[in-house]
């Protein structure tokens, strides 16, 4: 696993978010706030970083005129997380 991804997952909010996303198909922003115990602004920044690294997908859409955002893990994200988890268990 590259150092950049390792550094990215060292942040607890990003790690919580990606750990939850690996166990679900997709989830919304409100759920991720609850899961990560984070503020809207901070979470938004951390998710943007994960998205820029290609680890998660962000899908924005409207439902009944309300804006919605769904987050899901990408193939690259799954692979990176699995490698990260494997290394973590080996080091333990």
């Amino acid at each position: 696993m590259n150092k950049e991804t390792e550094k990215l997952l060292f942040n607890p909010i990003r790690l919580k978010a990606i750990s939850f996303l690996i166990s679900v198909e997709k989830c919304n922003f409100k759920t991720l706030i609850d899961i990560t115990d984070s503020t809207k602004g901070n979470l938004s920044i951390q998710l943007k970083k994960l998205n820029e690294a290609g680890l998660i997908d962000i899908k924005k859409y409207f439902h009944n005129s309300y804006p919605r955002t769904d987050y899901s893990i990408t193939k690259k994200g799954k692979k990176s997380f699995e490698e990260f988890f494997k290394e973590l268990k080996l080091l333990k």
Partner: protein
Amino acid sequence: MNKEEQLRIINNAINQTKQNLKPLGYNLVFWSIVVISMSLFHYFFPQIVQFSYYSAAIYWISIPLLGMIYTTNYNIKNGIKVGYETQLDRVIKIIWGVFGFAWIFIVAISLIYKVSPVQDVLFLLSIVLIMTGLIIKFNNVTIGGIGLLIFTAYSYYNPVMNLLLVNVVGLSLGMLVPGLSLYFQKNNE
């Protein structure tokens, strides 16, 4: 943040995913009540439903289509309320989506060839119920599906059976009862 802490964060985040089967139970109960009510109404008031060949077709297509719109809307709203979708939710959604398309196909074919779609739909429904029960590991739904499959097979060999009553009995035992037990089960998360 040390390694133990990282593992603890991962473990806690993954464990926050809960599988809620109540909406599936609601869908099963809703559809069984709709189809049973429609069958009973058709059975007791055939002069209204069957005043022409097309009136019966419109009756059996329009109401289920309205039901499909209602349940799709309910499932979308429920998905937004829960906030996430698990892999299991997606699998169940695909299976029932395929059933919906297959139902439209069977009804269309039966209209063209002027045959009753009841047994074919019940056969397909029993297979989907068995699959759902096995996937969610809920025996009542699996048993309901097996019961419906046996009942449907029996109805093929008894052409004198009234197909509307076949619908009522088959759906009551195969879908309504398992749906209610799924909806009211205490520990479905």
